[in-house]
């Protein structure tokens, strides 16, 4: 059987890659995909814990997270489309109409 610590290691690595991408990337859609990566890392941790604890609650949590991710994607992408209509840009650094 796969040791729990190995699965959690994978989960943490994915989470950190996602978080690093959130900080580094400038394209809004790519940044959003990095957030999806973070959510998936958390999901993996839930599934792993669920297996080792022998309770199903973790799997149920993942089920709900997937629904939330779908809703978030719909709203987030709509916001991005609305932005693109006005600004013709997807670069975070171009969003500066409210600087001090």
């Amino acid at each position, binding site marked *: 059987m796969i040791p729990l610590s*190995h699965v959690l290691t994978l989960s943490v690595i994915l989470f950190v890659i996602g978080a690093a991408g959130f900080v*580094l990337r400038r394209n809004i859609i790519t940044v959003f995909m990095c957030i999806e990566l973070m959510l998936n890392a958390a999901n993996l941790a839930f599934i792993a814990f669920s297996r080792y604890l022998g309770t199903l609650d973790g799997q149920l949590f993942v089920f709900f997270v997937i629904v939330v991710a779908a809703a978030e994607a719909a709203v987030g992408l709509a916001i991005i489309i609305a932005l693109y209509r006005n600004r013709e840009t997807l670069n975070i650094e171009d969003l500066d109409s409210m600087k001090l």
Partner: protein
Amino acid sequence: MEILFYICAAVSVLAALNVVLQRTPVYSALSLILVLCLLAVIYLLLGAEFIAVIQVIVYAGAIMVLFVFVIMLLNAGREVPSERSRLARWLGVPLVIAFLLEVLWAVWNQFPSGTAPAADFDAGPAAIGHLLFRNYVLPFEVTSVLILVAILGAVVLAKKEE
């Protein structure tokens, strides 16, 4: 069985790195789909059949198709590196790596390799259904409102000006 996990884990880390390092959003999206499918395999290995199926159908299927569709619609090209992203690299990356080491240390302390998984583990759709409609019926119902809000929000934001 175990060897399959390590292969999937290694490939998914590489694909995740590709999501972050690619400058063209479409390649990032395709890499992310690969990560999601590999995670589904790992879920199967961990006995979460139902979630594995959902992961492929809903996550890799529906949600990522939405991403790819929007990328195509907006014709998102390569991004150009800039000064501020260099600053973020110096500041953010060490912080993130510190977090990684901290969690790894904590996890390896907490769960030594011998931690045994629970015996007799039933994660079939029936067991999940029972739990969903008994203990978690409230979040299930709130989710319906959440999805309505998502539809409403997408319509409000993305429809053309009259």
